[in-house]
């Protein structure tokens, strides 16, 4: 019986041997020192801890480490090295969509997952796509605009 979990984290092979009930959120922040993933509520409501697991957006506070065998996990630290991030980053900057910033790493990953499944979303589809991520600062208009701009400027990337 194996008591380790093998998975990929931002492209690197990892072998996890600690408590399998540990939240992915806590493992990322405390174990792997990847603090770009934020903790806002620890009950799957706010989306600040969003990460991408096997191409899907997850609240990492609701993912147990034991469930990650063979999984591909991407956090903001990994995503920020991609060309898609560069387009999203510029788009968010263009409309000053980053205020306190605490929701933003999760919001950017939600934007990525939305565009990956729907490269030309309508405004309504963008709103639904980021509705699992709470932002208390912006009122969302600028973030919605940013995702729209990224979809246009990143034509062909998604």
């Amino acid at each position, binding site marked *: 019986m194996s008591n380790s979990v093998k998975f990929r984290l931002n492209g690197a092979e990892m072998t996890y041997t600690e408590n399998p009930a540990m939240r992915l959120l806590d493992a990322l922040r405390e174990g792997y020192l990847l603090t770009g993933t934020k903790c*806002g509520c620890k009950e799957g*409501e706010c989306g600040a801890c969003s990460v991408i697991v096997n191409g899907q957006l997850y609240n990492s506070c609701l993912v147990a480490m034991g469930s990650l065998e063979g999984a591909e996990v991407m956090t903001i630290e990994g995503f920020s090295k991609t060309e898609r991030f560069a387009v999203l980053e510029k788009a968010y900057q263009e409309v000053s969509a980053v205020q306190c*910033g605490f*929701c933003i*790493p999760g919001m950017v990953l939600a934007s990525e997952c939305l565009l990956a499944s729907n490269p030309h979303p309508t405004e309504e589809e963008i709103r639904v796509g980021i509705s699992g991520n*709470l932002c208390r600062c912006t009122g969302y208009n600028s973030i919605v605009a940013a995702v729209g701009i990224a979809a246009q400027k990143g034509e062909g990337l998604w």
Partner: protein
Amino acid sequence: MKTISKAVPKLDHYEKISGAAKYVCDLPTKGMLFGRMLRSTEARAKFGNITLPELPEGYFFYDKNDVPGVNKVQIVLDDTPVFAEGIVEYIGDPIGLLVGSDERVVNQLLKQIQVEYEVLEPVFDPRESKESFFNVNIDKGNIAEAFANADKVYEEKFHTGLQEQAYLETNGLIAEYVDGKMTIRGSLQCPYYVFGAVAQAMGLENENVRIVQDVTGGGFGGKEDYPSVLACQAAVAAYHSKKPVRIVFDRHEDMIATSKRHPSYCTYRVAIKDKKVIGMDIDVLYDAGAYTTLSLVVLQRGVIGAAGIYNVPNLKVRGEARKTNIVPSGAFRGFGGPQTFFAVEMMMTHIAKDLGMDAVEFKLQNAAKQGDTTSTSGRYHFPVPIPAMTEDVLKASDYYNKKKVYQNQTGRYRRGIGASLVYHGCGFTGNGERDLIKAVVKLKKSKDGMVEVLTAGTDMGQGLFTTLNKIVSSTLEIPMEQVIVALPDTDMVPDSGPTVASRSIMSVGNLLMKAAKRLKEEWIDGEAQLIEQRYEHPDFMIPFDNDNFTGDAYPTFSWSVNVVEVEIDSLTGFIKVIGAWGCYDVGTPIDEQIVMGQMEGGFVQSLGYGMMEKMEAHNGWIRNSSFSDYIIPTAVEFENLHVMLHVVDYPNGPFGAKGAGELPNVGPAPATIDAIQNALDTTLNKAPFIAEDVMNFLREVK
């Protein structure tokens, strides 16, 4: 648009979006102790013995007996204890602090602590409370005569509930005591508030206290006074344990233990003659909660705004903040304004309805103009652009046509449209800037020409570092890259006052502009230079008399007009906002996109206050202590949200700017409730008004 208003990339953009920014919760924890508060489970009780489990080595418990200085947190009055002294006043009142190296062990040990309580009778309803914290009154003109001369007198009661700031980053900080010096760093709005509080509680000299702001994930008032409380508690533990102590709240603890928006109960009596308001007689009651914290100044703003934007020649306001045994309310963006503005805006719509007038017409007919006296017998010194702004918003929202159509509806889906006309007074109330704050800023130029901006101003997302940089670099006519604005550290920066009251750009920014003008004149290449600038009270202001509450409460006001359109499903009670429009006059925006972001964000918080965000204390327990139970807006609720700016230069602000941040939190909630009452063809008197309230209303009508 002025050149300065053109948006620039925010200075903190990249570090935040890439996940590199370090909030206090992201700092390395090696060698630190984790702290968790022992909180009262009783709403009001004396407590005696505290029985601790056996604490492993390196785990410590601290309480009132361990506070080396004064066991009071310096806020406005010093009644908030660092740790409770024999009596607890609300569920969540801190009794002690348990610290240790493993957070999970700390949590387990905490559950084993037993406290002996002798339960006392609590008070939860401020209307039944016998303990008055503060009274603030206005007496202007001759109210008796006004009511004697009235054609008609209207009387109504209004209620608003608790609101939670719900910043995404919870309160948190780290205290460290090294070589006789206490350093606190973390998520906070007002470094010098924390500074004063820690010095007093720890009995330390000023030079032995240092406060540093870390990147802060939202504040909205919720990190104005509260970090002072938390800092004192953490400091006690760091002092005795000689180790850095980190306290970062989880969401539940943040929601039960930190300050909220004050619930309010207002009674309005309004005298009308010839369709004009000739007198208002108002009782304002704010539920302060268990300790006074910021209630005095919150109440003052509520009392001043109680007559709304209207020119009311005869005015009596009796404002009171009373004690109850729930978590203290404190600062929340808008700071006492949203409660009374809600009441007066609803009152005016109800009177208009009775007079057979459109509410907006009735409001405009009574609105104050430049030169009129304010509620405190001061003066509106500057233009009041309400009529032009109203025209813009009504046109954009097609208000009059919709109002005509949305009558006598009987189908399942019913629509309504509503409006509000409000202001927010810019800066501290009364003589606060002159007598209490006495702001100082500095510009420090190095030999190589880099200019450092030294203020205590904090950026918690509102973009202050970017805007202050723009003010200084534009004045000096140098690139933004040549100007540095860093996170404030009280070892480095002078006390330019707290980052509150929509004062930072107008007051601190103005001092910086003056300093930059001087530096420009005195600039010597290759030399290090230091410029200091101190606050000067505007000489046009009518002196404020704090005892009689008369004079100019604010140098100027920011104005806004809001329209909200809703569709109500009469089967489910569901309220859908189908359109929202706001026009804001904040002077010249220092950065148009930053201001738009502030207006949109505040607008959505206020829409939440109006129709979503319900927080109740049931027998003293905050029932809505998570994001599952306390629902804040997501991206889908308010998709048709339109903000416009009405730009008028404010001559005493930097580049024409005045207060901005709080303004959008005042008007949208009453506009929303106005829309809901229009859809339901009734008059409403409380906020929030949520789906459940719609269902109750429809049931009663049947």
